[in-house]
């Protein structure tokens, strides 16, 4: 990590660092210390954007005008700004907005520079970057790509240069970063805690020393720090002289191809990083060794699985430690199954049915208990966004809310609920010079100035899992795969803060295993202990789950639950005696489909030599999406990346 930050200090064009790591591995500590190491900048003294007086081509409008008219630009040296972008930031604070005081005094509209202006030529630091609101992410992305911030809001129209090193930290447990955003970071480091007890003890002692006497502690390391700063300056000057030979360039492109990266950003980042490293090591040209050292930094967050159909790559270095998301979920499954499968993967791969077939009293049929397959990243399950105002909390889908939630923007609206005071005053400000004032009041606000906030928050959803646990599901250990799939969906539900409910049906009836709860842990435990065996009372399962969903809808009429039915559709126990079960279930399904608020998904587990298409028929009747287990898996990252690029 220190290396990645240093390389960026030497060559800011590398494009920033994304620091991924567990809790408490001093991600934030290191990122914040970076600013102190960078050599001071030469800036135009009174420029809000910190323009470089030597680089006359990329001056801001103000400085450019002065430069053209021949006025001298006052020069000053300044520490490199490290600007923190907090999660609570609002749009106009990031890009800039109307200068209120100026507008009040003169009635003229002037830009009040935002965060991005301050970060120009410095470091923009985002803690917990994966929790940042999507809208803000888009803003930062587009500016980072262009190097220019254009402002068109609140009657202000302006632009200014905004080039910065993007430093972000994230904990992958809290959800992934959009691939498009991740790609913007030049390098990516993966942090782990130290394993050596002696070193860990050192960490504790240093920390304690720092807490007791921060100033003395900093002074003790002053010499080392200024030494490092001097090396950075030297490296910066040597940077242009470092030679890159053709074989080295070839090596970089080969590495990138082998790891199936999208686009060319990885190549560029590695090239620049290798050059910066050579400069730091005072070596006249880049050697293979430096490329290898930095390659992982550039590839960490861009590596993908090979595209299906392509021949497998000849180097297999990245295959087993691909993206961390995979690693995390595999670790999770192992953790979760810890008491059953102690041997981890090797045992899981070979044994199909665990010897846990404990016949339960009361049911005469043979029962089996299946383990759970490894979970995988699931593809997004969402419902279309609508304009209903809802209450709730979670991350599954976005909705407009009242009063609570993150304010996203403001609109002109006189109803006066949830007034956006700042926007209202800014609206009124330019007219104050002309409006009469009441004594004691500095601002006169007219009705048409009033703006209200539009807030948005993501709310979770109810996911109802309806699981066919009949013996037909035991064939070829299908249940293992099913459990793996459900666990994956549960993991996803955890990250999106959904509520979950479980219904299972087997033998003679259906059973609600879990009423709607936000405790995903409980659901996982129930899933683990779910036995398989007996007949297939599909009708019972449908009716029981429908009852549960109805009850939920009575309490939360605006909810849009998602019901996931996992079955092969081979019903053989009817509710009404004398009716054929395989005819009853589809007709019940058609009736249930009348409730349009529920989004149905049928996961078809039908397999074997004979394909009846029963589950497909069921899905048609329910108006459901018809999927197979494999369809649930997240599409390859390449699709996601391409998708994002078309949005741009």
């Amino acid at each position: 990590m220190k290396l990645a930050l240093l390389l960026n200090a030497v060559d800011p064009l590398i494009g920033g660092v994304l620091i991924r790591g567990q809790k408490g591995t001093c991600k934030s500590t290191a990122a914040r210390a970076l600013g102190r190491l960078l050599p001071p900048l030469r800036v135009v003294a009174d420029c809000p954007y910190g323009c470089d007086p030597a680089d006359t081509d990329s001056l801001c409008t103000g400085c450019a005008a002065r430069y053209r008219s021949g006025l001298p630009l006052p020069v000053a040296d300044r520490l490199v700004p490290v600007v923190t972008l907090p999660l609570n930031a609002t749009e106009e604070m990031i890009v800039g907005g109307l200068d209120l005081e100026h507008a009040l005094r003169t009635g003229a509209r002037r830009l009040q520079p935002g965060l991005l202006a301050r970060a120009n030529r410095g470091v923009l630091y985002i803690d917990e970057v994966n929790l940042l609101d999507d809208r803000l992410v888009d803003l930062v992305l587009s500016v980072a790509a262009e190097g220019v911030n254009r402002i068109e809001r609140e009657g202000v129209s302006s632009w200014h240069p905004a080039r910065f090193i993007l430093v972000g930290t994230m904990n992958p447990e809290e959800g992934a970063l959009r691939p498009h955003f991740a790609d913007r970071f030049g390098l990516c480091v993966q942090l782990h805690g130290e394993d050596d007890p002696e070193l860990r003890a050192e960490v504790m002692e240093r920390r304690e020393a720092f807490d007791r006497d921060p100033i003395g502690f900093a002074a003790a390391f002053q010499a080392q720090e200024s030494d490092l700063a001097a090396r950075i300056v030297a490296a910066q000057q040597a940077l242009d002289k470092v030679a890159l030979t053709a074989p080295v360039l070839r090596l970089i492109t080969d590495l990138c191809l082998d790891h199936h990266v999208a686009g060319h950003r990885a190549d560029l980042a590695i090239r620049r990083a290798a050059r910066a490293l050579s400069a730091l090591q005072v070596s006249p040209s880049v050697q293979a060794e430096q490329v290898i050292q930095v390659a992982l930094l550039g590839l960490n967050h861009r590596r993908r699985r090979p595209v299906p159909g392509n021949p497998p790559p000849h180097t297999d270095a990245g295959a087993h430690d691909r993206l961390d998301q995979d690693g995390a979920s595999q670790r999770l499954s192992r953790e979760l199954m810890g008491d059953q499968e102690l041997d981890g993967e090797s045992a899981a791969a070979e044994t199909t049915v665990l010897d846990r077939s404990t016949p339960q009293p009361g049911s005469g049929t043979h029962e089996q208990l299946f383990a759970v397959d490894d979970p995988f990243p699931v593809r997004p399950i969402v419902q279309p966004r609508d304009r209903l105002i809802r209450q709730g909390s979670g991350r599954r889908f976005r909705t407009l809310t009242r009063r609570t939630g993150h304010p996203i923007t403001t609109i002109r609206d006189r109803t006066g609920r949830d007034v956006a005071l700042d926007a209202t005053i800014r609206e009124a400000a330019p007219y104050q010079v002309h409006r009469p004032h009441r004594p004691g009041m500095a601002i006169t606000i007219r009705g048409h100035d009033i703006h209200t906030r539009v807030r948005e928050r993501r709310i979770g959803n109810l996911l109802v899992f309806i699981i066919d646990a009949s013996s037909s599901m035991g064939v070829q250990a299908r249940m293992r795969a099913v459990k793996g799939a459900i666990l994956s969906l549960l993991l996803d539900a955890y990250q999106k803060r959904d509520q979950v409910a479980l219904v299972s049906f087997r033998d003679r009836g259906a059973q609600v295993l879990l009423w709607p709860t936000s405790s995903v842990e409980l659901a996982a435990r129930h899933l683990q202990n779910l036995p398989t065996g007996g007949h297939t009372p599909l009708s019972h399962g449908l009716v029981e789950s429908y009852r549960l969903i109805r009850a939920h809808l009575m309490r939360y009429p605006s909810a849009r639950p998602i019901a996931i039915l996992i079955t092969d559709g081979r019903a053989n126990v009817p509710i009404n005696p004398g009716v054929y079960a395989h005819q009853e279930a589809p007709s019940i399904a058609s009736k249930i489909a009348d409730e349009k608020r529920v989004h149905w998904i049928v996961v078809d587990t039908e397999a074997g030599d004979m394909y009846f298409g029963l589950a497909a028929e069921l899905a048609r009747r329910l108006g459901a999406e018809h999927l197979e287990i494999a369809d649930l898996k997240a599409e390859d990252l390449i699709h996601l990346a391409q998708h994002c690029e078309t949005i741009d």
Partner: protein
Amino acid sequence: MQSPTIYPFVAIVRQDEMKLALILNIINPLISGVLIRGDKGTGKSTAVRALAAILPEIDVVENCPFQLPPGSNHAICQVCGPCPDPVRVIRRKVRVIELPVGATEDRVVGSMDLETAIKEGERRFEPGILAAAHRGILYVDEVNLLDDHVVDLLLDAAAMGTNTVEREGISISHPSRFTLVGTMNPEEGELRPQLLDRFGLYVRITGIPDPMARVEVMERRAAFEQDAAAFVQRWEPESHALQAQIQSAIQRHPLVRIERTHTVGIARRCIEAGVDGHRADIITYKAATALAAWRGRNQVADEDVETAISLALPHRLRRLPFDEIDRLP
């Protein structure tokens, strides 16, 4: 306004582990908090609220919205404007600030001051809960029910010890270092691991199984409800004794030494347990020294390390979202 009488901390029956964890946090605020996880009606909230009475005193500039000590020169002071001259310093108890579960974003981080905006046409920052909680205790009841985006804000502030506000035309950053005390009832769902890790220590409490102790609980409660003032007065001597004991532990704390073998021992235990990152080590270290001070020693002993580990490690073993906290070795 007369604040309601608070049930005395010393009058709480048993639940020694919880009391100890809270006291350690008073001795060394850098332990950064405690999570109390337990069933309904086990005195979680009572204990935290009762803390207010036994907390030590700190020097604060009078009327300082950011609870700064005298002589501090933080960047915020330039925004806030000069303090009235001469600066009046008051000595007051460390505060317990409660964060209600329904708190909105602007109340938590602070927002634009409405009155000055309209009357004087100036933007002024009105500090929120995170400013009030600086150098104090931030108490979140039912922390697992907290709104997701408020949790994000808390994490953000706790990570930096600073609250950075960029909203409504206000761009400000002020110190916000607090001891985070949370209570939760696991039936309502678990906490995100990231937030869990921010709590220094962890205590699990259950109802007391001993009938005699339960009778004691009922009787004391009844006595308190009948005549709160008299009840508090009856416990006054013990409260004072506890306060004095805490005070002497605070003074002793900087003198406590820890041997290298102990630090390496802590590190080894943390590696064996497979915790994420280094926060567990650091917290255990701090808790062990605080414990030694509390027990009147100048040298950390084996038992201090053991107790510290039992308080600092359990919730960090739950590395993944679905693991249960109490499935411990």
